[in-house]
């Protein structure tokens, strides 16, 4: 089908309240436009991000997940962003085993003043994920096909 509309990725962003979320706000007020593909979810600290949210977002249709937290040393809960970094490393490796490309899940440190970085990161990621195409997660097992349908076991 040649005339399908160009693929527009859906990205779910989990932004830390104290830094990246504020930066995204700033980007808005400064009219730094970025791709409209992102749905932002505010969390209190990147360290609060449960990897279950990431896999659920991917399962529910996100083509990519962006996580934003305070720069190392700046976390309001001291260690939260380091905790996130460690989970992120392990999560990325695991997602790769599920055939999910590295570029679909991204972690960035963006302070409250870096509205421009929000803009750059989002635009970059949207372009990358657009190139990758939709995330074709294998569906959960579907109802069994008609059992009377006889076909070769192989």
């Amino acid at each position, binding site marked *: 089908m040649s005339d399908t509309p160009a693929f527009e990725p859906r990205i779910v962003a989990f932004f830390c309240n104290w830094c990246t979320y504020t930066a995204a706000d700033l980007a808005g007020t400064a009219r730094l436009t970025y791709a409209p593909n992102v749905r932002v979810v505010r969390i209190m600290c990147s360290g609060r991000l*449960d*990897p*279950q949210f*990431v*896999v*659920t977002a*991917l*399962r529910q249709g996100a083509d990519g997940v962006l996580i934003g937290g305070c720069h*190392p040393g700046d976390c309001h809960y001291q260690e939260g962003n*380091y*905790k996130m*970094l*460690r*989970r992120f*490393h*392990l*999560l990325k*490796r*695991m*997602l790769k*085993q*599920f*055939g*999910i490309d590295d570029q679909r899940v991204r972690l960035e440190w963006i302070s409250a003043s870096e509205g421009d970085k929000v803009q750059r990161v989002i635009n970059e990621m949207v372009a990358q994920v657009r190139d990758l195409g939709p995330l074709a*997660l*294998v*569906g*959960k*097992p579907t109802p*069994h096909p008609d*059992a009377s349908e*006889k*076909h*070769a*076991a*192989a």
Partner: protein
Amino acid sequence: MTKPKVGFYWCASCGGCEEAVVDLHEAILDVVAAVDIVFWPCAMDFKRTDVEAMADGELAVCFINGAVRTSEQFEMVELLRRKAGVVIAFGACAQSGGIPGLANFTSKAAILANVYEDTRTTVNPHKTYPQATVQVPEGTLTLPVLDETVRALGQAIPVDYYLPGCPPPAKLIADAVGAILAGTLPAPGSVLAPNVGVCHECTRKETKPEKMLVTQFKRPHQVLIDPAQCLLAQGLVCLGPDTRSGCGAACPAGNMPCTGCLGALDQVRDFGAKALSGLASVLDAGEDAAIDAGLAGVPDPAGTFYRYSLPASELFAKLPE
């Protein structure tokens, strides 16, 4: 009072769940006395037509173990669902896919090619594969068709309760039977095991530090394991904190880490992601290189965290060929 009718059934099962029932030892006689076991294919004879002849709901409780893998299994569990008032998914395979569910990392075609062509003892110049229907000189033979994927029981039919474990510990089986007889089953959808972690039952829990910090995860063959210290604190990948208890921390009692067979606690939606999170959180490393080095002891995160629950995972993978 008439005795409640109870059935046991197995799908793609290793038989360990059936053995677990036999491991009630003498107590099994009490069970047999209290209920009317209508069928149990491993120990008794019954026919599908016997089940078909039952009224819908006639069977008070049906325990089903094993994952759903073939057309025949699916037909049978659908039938049992109609006949049984309560269906209990028995064991990890029925609850969440179990170890045979790891087959969902690959495809049916890849499995067949591997078994019938690639394994090093196979000699198959004509690329013969088993067929659903095959003509032999004397007539026709048939084989059931394998499904593309392995399904947990709850992905094939609605399930009322889950009895977790690979296999379920004898105590949980006995408690579940007790609850059925006393009419004290909890709300439908419940897992019939305590909602606390394995650590709770572990003899090493006193040695589990308040603030757990591990600089390097290690694989069990790489270290001599201290039989008294918390395994996680020793840097072993022990999933005890995120796994439901009920087994008496059996694997730590064998001086090996918990691999998570009793599955998730109530509040958890995806066991693998949760266990991954818990493990990464105790790593004491800040820089990328140190983190990667520390995580080298977890070389197969997907297969480790979803060892018993791949079909039930949010990501539910089949790897690209």
